């Protein structure tokens, strides 16, 4: 086993450092080293979006990034979406609109949708569909899920 590398980074506004092997992906580090298991492993090759996190403001698949690449970066995961006990409007909408069934893809969709609303607070249905095409859901048929994003964006506009 190669020696572990020391990495210093910021996760959900907290400074974090960890040791990892170069071959461990950011996804593995989040889950197996830091036990932030909200980020899910769906396909491990960038085709389902279950491992979506936001890195330096950019939505990425954490399975296609090495843990060592996280040095000096700012990472947002599902665990940081609710702020001091208050659910994010997206989380509220997914709950109230049944925007999920089994829930395995939900954290990935929430982070992807969050990245979208950060960039474009008032997306139309087609823009939402385009942005979320990198996230697979096998339960919902996407209908209630996309409505949840629309409703979250409306509620954020009102607030």
């Amino acid at each position, binding site marked *: *086993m190669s020696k572990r590398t020391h990495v210093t980074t910021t996760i959900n506004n907290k400074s974090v450092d960890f040791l990892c*092997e170069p*071959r*461990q992906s950011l996804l593995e580090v989040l*889950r197996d080293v830091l*036990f*932030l*298991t*909200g*980020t*899910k*492993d*769906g*396909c*491990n*090759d960038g*085709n*389902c979006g*279950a491992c979506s996190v936001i890195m330096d403001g950019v939505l990425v698949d954490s399975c296609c990034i090495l843990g060592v690449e996280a040095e000096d970066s700012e990472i947002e*995961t*599902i*665990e940081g*979406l*609710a702020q001091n006990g208050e*659910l994010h409007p997206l*989380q509220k909408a*997914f*709950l*109230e*609109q*049944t925007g*999920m*069934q*089994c*829930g*395995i*893809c*939900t*954290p990935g969709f*929430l982070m992807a949708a969050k990245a979208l609303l950060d960039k474009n607070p008032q997306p139309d*249905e087609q823009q*939402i*569909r*385009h942005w*979320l*095409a*990198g*996230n*697979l*859901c*096998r*339960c*919902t*048929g*996407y*209908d*209630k899920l*996309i*409505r949840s994003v629309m409703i979250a964006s409306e509620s954020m506009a009102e607030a």
Partner: protein
Amino acid sequence: MNNPEPLAKEFRVLGTRPIRPDGLDKVTGRALFSDDFYLPDMIHGRILRSPHAHAKIKSIDTSAAAALPGVRAVVTGADFPPIESKMMSQGVAGMINIGDVADNCIARDKVLYDGHAVAGVAADNPHVAEEAVNLIKVEYELLPPVMDVRTAMAADAPVIHEDFYPGAFILPTEKYLPNATRMQMGSGDLEKGFAEADIIVEREFTSETIHQGYIESHITTVKWDENNHITVWTATQGIFNLRDLTAGVLLVPMANVKVVPLEVGGAFGGKERMYLEPIAAMLSKKSHHAVKIALRRDEVLRATGPSSGTYVKVKFGAKKDGTLVAADLHLAYEAGAYAGGPIFLGAISSTSRYNIPNIQINGFDVIVNKPTMRPYRAPGAPQALFAVEQVIDELARELEMDIIDFRMKNLTKTGDLLVAGFPCAPIDTVNMMETVKAHPHYTAPLTGENQGRGLAYTMWFNLGEASSAQISINPDGSVQVTTSCPDMSGTRMTFAMQAAEALGIDVEHVTASVGDTEAVGFSLPTVGSRTTYATGAVIYDIAQEVLGEMSARVALLWETDSELVIVDKGVFSNKEDANLTMSFHEVCEKLHETGGPITVHNSKSSQSFIPGTCVHLTDVEVDPETGKVDILRYTVFQDVGKAVHPDYVEGQMQGAAVQGIGMALNEGYFYDAEGHLKNASLLDYRMPTTLDIPMIETVILESPNPAHPYGVRGCGEHSIIPPPAAIANAIHDAVGVRMNSMPMAPHKVCAAIKQKQAADA
């Protein structure tokens, strides 16, 4: 029998849309799925899989793997007890050949498909385990692969099993050919029927192997302790099913195996069977550590339980007035490596919605060198419907009849004898058809060139069978419901709602959870659209027992006979003294001074073969130059008896429809000539994305199911059945070609259009 009467009672809780109890954990990332479970001493397992579709194992050399630093244990088939081929009963809802299950978990002398497990390694981390697995040397003697049902049924086909059990799932069966079992059913006189027909249509159809495509892989953590007790933490549809199979393959007492259910990240039939537990358990026994095995996505596609590719030939005869008089169906379904595929369900659902006086169904369960076929949401039904509903559409158009009028002329109604030999349980099928006909989508004009509209209709049967549940009440008026049916998409809430309805309290006061195999009695897995219906019926029954016991407590407090105590909507009152009342909550407060805790546990079997119907209506646009099909509009009509939680019911209708759309257009296994699966990734096993489908409109119909106290029917599977047929009919309406092969991928649509152009020219 008559159509079901609408239930008189008004519902307080059923039909409302409370927020699911597990929702909060799922939107915050806290929910514990199978991969989220960790133990301090846990190490990681990986599996070596056959690169060949059909081969003898000549030798296995694991020395290099065992020598790799960080490796704690290595197992091969030789480490497992020999298990004889024996049928294990899981009740009416399934017989399992435990010998086949054992061989499928890890190959001994022969590998039967690309991906068949051959050896396992446990190491300190998954990377080391992966490297070690690749150091194992296996010598194979290649055998000719059999990759398609028609090849497998040829007289000169290579024999995959010298012997196999033909009666695993169907009566009466015969070992028909070296690789196939045949089942037959039907009634009337086929010759006479076709003689009466004014029009006869005969067509052939094929479909590829498909996968459930759940986003959560198969992941299990197993600890085999020093007392020969085995604990399994995993996501499964059936904790008892998994327990019994694990015990059966490892030859340990069932009571020594404990299965702890974790959140299920999608299953759709694919997680009702065991794959990893024996290997993980044996690695745990050898290494003295808990062992976690997480399958890679390519392993999930290559080596779990997909659903059958098929060859279907159907011949239908009708009179000028649209009356169906005869049907002859030949259904050949892949069983995969071991006998027992979904052929029977495909057969009974293929024509069940229509009365056909003279009918013969020949079904073939065909062994091929592919993974063992397992249930996928309405197992076997979409493939048969793809054929039959296209022929029905063709007959209606040939006879220049409205496609709904034609179907109504032949509609199966309550009490009609089904081809399986028993009468159709109460359901209002006429109202279904009239509702569709009256819906604006049915009459809306199409707006462009190369657009078309298609319809398909299905009747599917949900399972009932054994379920167990427990209700206990607390002194503060709160109530716990515990069941042993894993929650796949909200059944904890639908149980809580049924308990609250029955007890006459608010759903906020009920907590529902899924216990482990030591907490609650046996239930069949969460399969066959049975859970909200069958387990719900048990909850209703034990709620009545709880109220009976509470009435006795009230009688004690009032110093009267319990016969005089009546309870309605959570209020206990005295027949003889109108002023005497106690609320549910007040009775709970007296719990410990009137005889102690009240806990009722019970098990019950509910009736199976409850019919549920749905119609799908879709508009498509075809690009004639590329063969690309776009879904423009999609409406799902489904009769669910009583929608306990309408959001979840709509979710089932929409999710199932989109799985059906995926199967219709792009999903399918692609094997090369040697039997290697070439598209074992989510990139190339093309499931629908957000951009591939529109919003799915839903119309819920409720004709009550008399076999359930609240009229509930199963609703989880039905809507996956019609999409391929509905889309095929829409494609025909758009560009005039009949698609006879699933998936209806662009190159096939393109070829069909070219063929038509050539024929027209």
